[in-house]
């Protein structure tokens, strides 16, 4: 059974992911809509604060970035576990477009992708089952220091280490 990991813990999923568009009056509470359906819903949808949107890995969020960034939840579909497009998309939403809500990955997610997702700003990912969910949580802590700046490390290692050295921090 698909298991949600949120903030590095197993969590209950109280959102409903809608694969296909649903007519506006029938959209349930806390629904995650496909991007196209949400755009079609216009101002009525944009006014709702309990609605999320999901994006395909090849989506270009640039045109709607400000509206998307105001949503409580954005989800990115990972169609195959070795498909890294969602990583760039997530990183852009978090670091360039200032999205502060829940950033969720769903689809074909291997636990070993979790460290990458986490560093690209995802705070939620849906794993295949409970064992995979726990493996994903464990995987995030496997490497404690990376070289690059990321959503979890605003500075690259060379700046961090130089700053720590200057401040006399071990």
């Amino acid at each position: 059974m698909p298991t949600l990991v949120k903030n590095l813990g197993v969590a209950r999923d109280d959102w409903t992911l809608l694969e296909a568009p649903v007519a506006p009056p029938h959209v349930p509470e806390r629904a995650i809509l496909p991007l196209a359906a949400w755009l079609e819903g216009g101002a009525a949808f944009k006014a709702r604060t309990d609605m999320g949107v999901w994006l395909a890995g090849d989506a270009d969020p640039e045109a709607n970035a400000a509206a998307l960034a105001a949503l409580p939840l954005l989800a990115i579909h990972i169609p195959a576990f070795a498909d890294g497009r969602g990583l760039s998309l997530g990183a852009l939403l978090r670091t360039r477009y200032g999205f502060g809500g829940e950033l969720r990955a769903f689809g074909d997610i291997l636990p070993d992708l979790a460290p990458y997702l986490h560093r690209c700003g995802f705070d939620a990912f849906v794993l295949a089952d409970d064992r995979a969910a726990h493996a994903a949580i464990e995987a995030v802590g496997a490497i404690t220091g990376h070289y690059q700046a990321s959503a979890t490390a605003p500075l690259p290692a060379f700046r961090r280490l130089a700053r720590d050295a200057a401040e006399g921090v071990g």
Partner: protein
Amino acid sequence: MYRYTEFDQRFIDERVAQYRQQTRRYLAGELTDEQFQQLRLRNGLYIQRLAPMLRVAVPYGTLSATQLRALADISRRYDKGYGHLTTRQNVQFNWPTLEAVPDILADLATVEMHAIQTSGSCIRNITTDQFAGVAADEAVDPRPYCEITRQWSSQHPEFDWLPRKFKIALNGAAADRAATQVHDIGIRVRRDAAGQDVFDFLVGGGLGRTPAIGGVIREGLAVEHLLTYLEAILRIYNRYGRRDNKYKARIKILARAMTLPGLKERVDAEWAHLQDGPGTLTAAEIQRVKAHFAPPAYAQQADATALLAERRLASPAFNAWMRNNVAAHRAPGYAIVTLSTKLTGVPPGDVTDVQMDAVADWADAYGHGEVRIGHEQNFILPDVPLGQLPELWERATAQGLAAANLGLLTDMVCCPGGDYCSLANAKSIPLAEAIQRRFDDRDYLHDLGQIDLNISGCMNACGHHHVGHIGILGVDKKGAEFYQVSLGGNAGDDASLGKILGPSFGREEVPDVIEGILDVFVQERREAEPFLHCVRRIGIEPFRQRAYANAG
């Protein structure tokens, strides 16, 4: 050379533990073959025809004597006592067990080595000029920038799951010994008029199924922008590179689809967001890494001119080796020596544990404890005092590492081919040997001059056949092994892709075909004209005719 900081060492150690855990989960049945494949590939482990193959990273081809001894030791304990030098300056072991790989990686980590990203759809080992730092024709030492790029590319959060493998090469000398025009990104480091290091970026070169020459996408980029500009290119590639067809997934295909100016526009727009951001290199960081590559203290050497002249007169073999395998060093009194692995009867690039130990000893005895691996699959000793060349030559001869054929026909580049590789259509090693046996006359080879003969066992082009002056590609015709021959490729400054002669040949025909090609060259060449020049001047038609006549 670069030595790990505590931070670097911890990263490598934790990576070993991470991979050990991944292997354990696979063996416990928690990961499918397909899932584990992606994980093991990112740690250099292929499952080959006969056994797993582990590719160890040798960043930009630089090894210490200590590291080389560790590789020799690994080949003894986990393999059959030999290793293979690859065209990406790495070392491969063909016979480890899957279960032993975490232990091998732990051993490697004790000497600051790893197998991270030596395969898989990610940023591969950064390569450079095997003479970097010592070449007489070098403007800027590219190694600090290679190391900075290596660190940046190691488990990058965004770019470890790319559409396809991604190869970056840097070159800082007048001659392009790093083949920058046939890499996904080629970076040329030079000093500008103001005396500052700057980069010219090429994008979209590559071999494989659709060979392409890279185009210039940025000129004169200041060094502090190295990583942010790379990030911009990689982000565009990661987002827009094709993932529906692995044969159309390299950045060269994206560059063709977008056109080079179109790609440049996207990259520059992306870079505008990143420029001067936290990824910008600091002067302190560049200086820190450069300090690791400061030239060693070169001692004043006694004049060896008379000694060398006397020995060269006395021994034609030593004379040939001096002429072909010894290159000019930037420090007076020193030379750069290439130890050829291309002895007839030995698969190109294969070296035994005994040879590895010997080369390590020579690096200590005749140098500063450093060894290089070149993309032509040879060892290089970068700092040999001229007066010690005769002694080194004698010892190398005794170890079968003094073949005086560097740059000549028999110094061929060759992938492991169908003897080992499960991707190969055809064997390449027996063919290389057949050619070496046919053309083993030292004077004849020397008269022919520089000829790059490159052999790949399949379209993946690990043997770089497209850029061989003579390229040979193994093809499958209804289950039988055949070989397609091309002429006029070149990996150097004026890179070009070879033109295919025509229908492929059977393996036993290939030596006759090569002989026919060489006969035409000898007949048509003007004075000391190089082979490549001659092919470019007269075109492939005369060669084609003789080749097919000889194939009978």
